[in-house]
């Protein structure tokens, strides 16, 4: 009896348990209809593979260079993490400057009604996946959710808290803790 087509397709891919392999092989040798089926599969694959992308090596180089340009920018930002040797007077001057700017900023923000403005509103649009936190977003992006469209509504203007952290992140954390 002929193995069914699904089994032949798996056989064609070399994905058959070794215990079944021999008997299927034996059968195919004597069965012309199974042989025909296999040659159909072969033809299908041949046609699909006949057109590889030309110059995939070239693309590889292009993309590698693009990625490295971006990485260089990132590593330049990391200069802040390196140790710097700063003469004491300069450091003192810098500290004084920093503290005064900081206090000025504090005074300015006190003048406003709310010292830390919150995101004006977070709207949840009808989407396939409910995303409320950054973690949800990560999970959704990495998951096998091929069919979703996500719309994240950002506040009208970028708002940062005192430490320079976008308040949107604060809002996300707040939303999660509720």
């Amino acid at each position, binding site marked *: 009896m002929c193995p069914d087509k699904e089994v032949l397709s798996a056989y064609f891919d070399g994905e058959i348990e070794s215990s079944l392999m021999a008997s299927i092989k034996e059968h195919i040798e004597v069965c012309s209809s199974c042989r025909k089926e296999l040659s159909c599969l072969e033809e299908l694959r041949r046609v699909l593979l*006949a057109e590889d992308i030309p110059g995939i090596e070239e693309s590889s180089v292009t993309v590698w260079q693009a990625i490295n340009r971006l990485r260089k920018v990132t590593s330049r930002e990391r200069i802040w993490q390196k140790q710097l040797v700063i003469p004491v007077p300069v450091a003192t001057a810098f500290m004084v400057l920093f503290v005064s700017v900081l206090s000025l900023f504090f005074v300015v923000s006190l003048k406003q009604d709310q010292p830390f403005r919150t995101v004006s509103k977070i709207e949840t649009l009808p989407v396939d996946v409910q995303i409320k936190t950054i973690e949800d977003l990560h999970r959704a992006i990495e998951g096998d959710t091929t069919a979703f469209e996500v719309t994240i509504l950002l506040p009208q203007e970028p708002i940062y808290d005192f430490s320079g952290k976008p308040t949107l992140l604060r809002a996300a954390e707040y939303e999660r803790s509720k």
Partner: protein
Amino acid sequence: MEKQGPYPFREVYELAFPILMRVSFRITGDREVAEELCQEAFIRFLNRYPPIPTLDQSKYWLIRVVKNLSLNFVKRKGRERKAFEKFGREPMKVQESVEDCLLRKESAARLREGLEQLPEKLKVVLILKEYSGLNYREIGKVLKISEGNVKVRVFRARNRLQELLDEEGEYVP
């Protein structure tokens, strides 16, 4: 950021790039778009924290991301048609004899059309099977489905394609 996990990024790149490029190109039909989406996938990989512990897992993760990016691209831009037309207008060079080429072009065009018409679930599995060199188990890991499920989908995709080709006649292997 020089290293992701205990292996150098270069290693991941060389292992995964050809696969990502082929998968993305088959879905989007556009080489430049495929390059951009591959780049995006690698950037996301580099920015990922914590890093992915093994080389294989990194490969599966990257394929999954580029597949999602490519499908989203096609959907969002509604370019399915355009991509296909572009693909169709510029047939790739095939090093084959002339008569062979004519025959090949005919069935290749119809096959591309057929692949295009397949439901997404079947299309993706067949593309991964034929262009990524992954086995059923690995495809299962990329798509987060079982090996048995991969087997069924690969079979159904092929079956549909052959039916489509048979309907149009002339397809004699």
